[in-house]
């Protein structure tokens, strides 16, 4: 109904291409990270085609690495799926934050865009929305960039894995961490935001130390959300 609202939810080929290009620089790191996964998977005894298939379908690096830890001649199914769910549960919250921007799309488009939701493109899209810019192109185009480079990297790792045998020694395990921190630290912070984030960080750490593995992101984010629900920004608007 309102003109500005519909503009923000715009999604056309131009915006998708722009979004794709914006994620290309970070995607080069994703190639290296994917190559590390491809190599690690081969070393864990995964079939080559299956490794590439896993990156193509699952497209969630942290959970894929976690799966390798459980991989062997016999794989405990329930443990594997619970681990994958726990590591990826943050997607549920990310999807919820996107709902306002996605609800006017047709179901096919809405759930189609969500196929490629990942940390980096989500963070950039939310940043755009919060600045009053269109973000869905970043979400879809950026997601396609991350996804294609992730699969490409995985295949490289399967074929020429020797180049990245220890991603940690190259600092590559910190790619996403540094990226996400750059997103967080780049924005301006109100007093309310500072309180929300402090609670989120504290809850996350407590969960990390005292609750089952991989629960910390969801616990911290929900704690931050609850503080958000019960506090208001001081009104300084003109």
């Amino acid at each position, binding site marked *: 109904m309102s003109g500005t609202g519909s503009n923000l939810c715009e999604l056309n080929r131009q915006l998708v291409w722009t979004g794709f290009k914006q994620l290309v620089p*970070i995607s080069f*790191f994703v190639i290296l990270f994917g190559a590390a996964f491809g190599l690690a998977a081969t070393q864990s*005894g995964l079939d080559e085609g*299956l490794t590439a*298939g896993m990156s193509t*379908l699952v497209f969630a690096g942290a959970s*894929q690495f976690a799966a390798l830890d459980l991989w062997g*001649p*016999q*794989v405990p*199914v*329930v443990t*594997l*799926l619970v681990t*994958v*769910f726990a590591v*990826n*549960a*943050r*997607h*549920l*919250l990310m*999807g*919820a*934050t*996107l*709902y306002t921007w996605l*609800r006017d799309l047709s179901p096919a488009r*809405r759930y189609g865009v*969500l*196929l490629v939701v990942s940390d980096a493109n989500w963070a950039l899209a939310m940043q755009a929305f919060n600045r009053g810019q269109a973000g869905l192109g970043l979400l879809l185009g950026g997601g396609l960039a991350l996804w294609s480079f992730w699969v490409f990297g995985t295949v490289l790792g399967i074929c020429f894995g020797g180049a990245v045998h220890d991603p*940690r*020694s190259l*600092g590559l*395990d*910190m790619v996403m*961490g*540094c990226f*996400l*921190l*750059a*997103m967080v630290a*780049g924005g301006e912070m109100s007093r309310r935001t500072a309180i*929300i984030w402090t609670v*989120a960080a*504290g*809850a*996350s*750490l407590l969960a990390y130390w005292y609750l089952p593995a991989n629960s*910390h*992101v*969801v*616990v*911290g*984010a929900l704690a*931050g*959300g609850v503080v*958000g*629900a019960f*506090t208001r920004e001081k009104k300084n608007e003109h």
Partner: protein
Amino acid sequence: MSIDSAGLGALILVVAMFAVTLATRWGGVFVMSFVPINERVKRFIGGMSGSVLVALLAPMAVAGDGGARLALLTTAVVVLVLKKPLPAIAAGILAAAVYRWL
């Protein structure tokens, strides 16, 4: 319960991982379509959006090794000084690599 990872078993495992991950990608939006969006829900969602990142980063910064901490510190400093994310990310990764190499 375990599945033999030879042959078809491995394929079943990968498809099951895909299904679980897809459920997490779709589930949030799906559930929200049944939630009435009022002011409080909006503030909850808003508070949660930055908190996802903070909750992801906090254990990395506190419980990570020296390389991880130095990487995050470097990224934070560079992004605050230069206001540009890419050099900050590159500097962070480099810092971790150098720290672990030394």
